[in-house]
């Protein structure tokens, strides 16, 4: 594994190996001294062209606990407005001698383009509305811990603004590769383009009715609905969205008792998720955050400490 650009590049075995390594990393997190010497002397740049406190601090801690030298860079706005090409921007950093770049960018595909230009390993920390692989891995990690087994045969509903969600695309690939069945739930305006043929090819379900799906789920993943989508006319009002697609207390009661609730955050309480659901015993929201560091340690470990990458 040289880069982590898309979950689609990973086999089932590779995903499970990443999750297994994350288990042992997770134990480190509960020690008083959290540092492992594994990546001593290696340099990691967290290059965030788009703000993300949560993901950036998670990657930063992961690097530090593995003893790597980590630097955070933020590239506010697109490089177009600065008159410098993206290629020039990243090549300048790469030329300093970097082992790995964690890239967050507002444009889909930017990490893949950067990987084609530079010599270092690239981790996609979220690109536009394309993918967010480390989020999908930590979601799988958290669900696996709570539900047991390796998620094969489990039923996961993913609900919300699917069109604009990179979390959706990575989770879909991850869960299908692990053998889970997936149902996407959203109003038609928030379903991704070409969802019909896509669902047929990749073997997942779609529904416009959350109530029909909930009784058979093992996990429900509520995605953030941005209030600014309102201006695009994707749905009439936040009130209507909350009534039709929000995880209300009544819907919580429709779920099987063992079923869990995930949300990648930040949550819009009262819109896509009620406070009751967010704070319920089945909610994994804080477990997800905690798992995030362990999973990212695992990713960095596999990319930098794996065989053949010791040069």
């Amino acid at each position: 594994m040289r880069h982590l650009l898309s979950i689609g590049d990973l086999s089932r075995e590779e995903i499970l190996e990443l999750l297994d390594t994350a288990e042992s990393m997770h134990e480190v997190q509960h020690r008083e001294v959290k540092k492992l010497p594994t990546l001593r002397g290696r340099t990691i740049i967290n290059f965030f062209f788009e703000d993300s406190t949560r993901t950036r601090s998670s990657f930063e801690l992961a690097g530090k606990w593995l003893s790597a030298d980590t630097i955070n860079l933020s590239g506010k706005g697109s490089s177009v407005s600065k008159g410098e090409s993206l290629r020039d921007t990243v090549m300048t950093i790469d030329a300093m001698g970097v082992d790995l770049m964690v890239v967050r960018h507002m444009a889909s595909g930017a990490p893949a383009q950067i990987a084609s230009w530079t010599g270092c390993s690239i981790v996609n920390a979220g690109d536009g509305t394309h993918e967010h692989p480390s989020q999908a891995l930590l979601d799988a990690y958290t669900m696996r811990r709570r539900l047991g087994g390796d998620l094969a045969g489990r039923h996961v509903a993913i609900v919300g603004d699917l069109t604009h969600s990179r979390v959706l695309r990575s989770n879909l690939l991850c869960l299908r590769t692990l053998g889970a069945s997936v149902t996407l739930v959203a109003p038609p305006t928030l379903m991704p383009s070409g969802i019909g043929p896509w669902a047929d090819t990749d073997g997942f379900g779609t529904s416009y009715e959350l109530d029909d799906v909930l009784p058979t789920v093992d996990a429900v993943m509520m995605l953030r609905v941005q209030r600014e989508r309102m201006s695009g006319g994707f749905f009439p009002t936040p009130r209507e969205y909350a009534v039709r697609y929000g995880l209300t207390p009544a819907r919580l009661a429709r779920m099987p008792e063992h079923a869990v609730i995930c949300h990648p955050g930040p949550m819009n309480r009262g819109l896509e998720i009620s406070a009751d659901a967010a704070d319920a015993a089945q909610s994994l929201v804080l477990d997800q955050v905690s798992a995030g560091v362990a999973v990212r340690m695992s990713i960095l470990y596999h990319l930098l400490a794996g065989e053949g990458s010791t040069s």
Partner: protein
Amino acid sequence: MTTPPLLITGADLAGAGRGDLLVADGRIVAAGPDAAAEAPGGTARTDADGLVALPGLVDLHTHLREPGREDAETVETGSRAAAAGGYTAVLAMANTTPVTDTAEAAERVLDLGRRAGYVDVHPVGAVTKGLAGAELAELGLMAASRARVRVFSDDGRCVHDARVMRRALEYVRAFDGVISQHAQDPALADGSACCHEGEHSGRLGLPGWPGVAEETVVARDVMLARHTGSRVHIAHVSTAGSVEVLRWAKAQGIAVTAEVTPHHLMLTTDLLAGYDPVYKVNPPLRPAEDVEALRAALADGTIDAVATDHAPHPRQDKEHAFADAAFGMLGLETALSVVATTMVTEGRVGWREVAQVMSHAPARIAGLAGQGQPLEPGSPATITLVDPGRRVSVDAALSQSLSRNNPWHGRELTGAVHLTMLRGQVTAREGLVWGGVA
């Protein structure tokens, strides 16, 4: 300037059978099997056995970037690329800096073209001032200028306001002008839209550019053309739905013409999977079903012309994230090869039809009297010789253009331009450009 007469021997004359062409004083003086008999002493000879002679190619849609972006292309370098690609006339789009929206700006482009001398450069005038879509540019003054502008377009932007489009169509009727419409409803596909809306845009997370954003404008504009009795031309048609509308409109006798680009005849939306901005173009590459419909429409005459939408960009404008990179790809030097590969070698059309869609029809649409003439005595000796069987491996580095955003790099195509002649003067041979004519 006097050059000795030239006899081009043994070419297939635009699909009408083998014959010779006798050229003197910039004109064709004899054509056909008996032309050699009329050659006076001292006539030079060019063996064209196995080649196809076409009337010089005419491009309805070229971006030459000058004035404003001389780092991408100049009138001279774009003219050289055109000559290398078999073209003898190009229509230079108005979206330069400043915009070609006055008679003076149009005359300046005309003069730059004459100074370069490789092809006839005809400026396209903007429909609206500054391409802003609000107020009509000085269409009549551009028409009356030395540049004799007849084609008007806000290309790159759609004339989306129906009232403005209606007035423009009505107004240009006074001087037999035509509005070339970039059909893109901005409410359905805004400036960020960069990938055909469908399964690929969904998977890649790229902003979708649905075919319907083009089709609704085509439908509206053919109805406006019917209402006004004016001519409308649809630039770079890219979807099967637009073809359906055009087919219906033509059956009604509406004065609509349309063009298709070489890239929409061959390249498909799945090429965007690697996010390589060389494939970013507007309108976007479409699925194979659209490509098939466009080929069929070109073969049956629903689409009148092939136009390149040659859009040079320097590297730094393409080496951005896909969403931020510039739209457009090169096309002048490869257009004939792409049409030969997709249309002729597949048996969809013969060379007579290639002459139609790449020379006669575009010259007629643009009102160019000296271009697109039949290969007959009396016509200007404006001729493109094509080697129909030659395999070409496209190399982006071997280009007359200043830019290298060439989506055909590394592809194998069949059929290539051998020689280009403008009014008796050779302007290019085997991709190499001769000295300017002027």
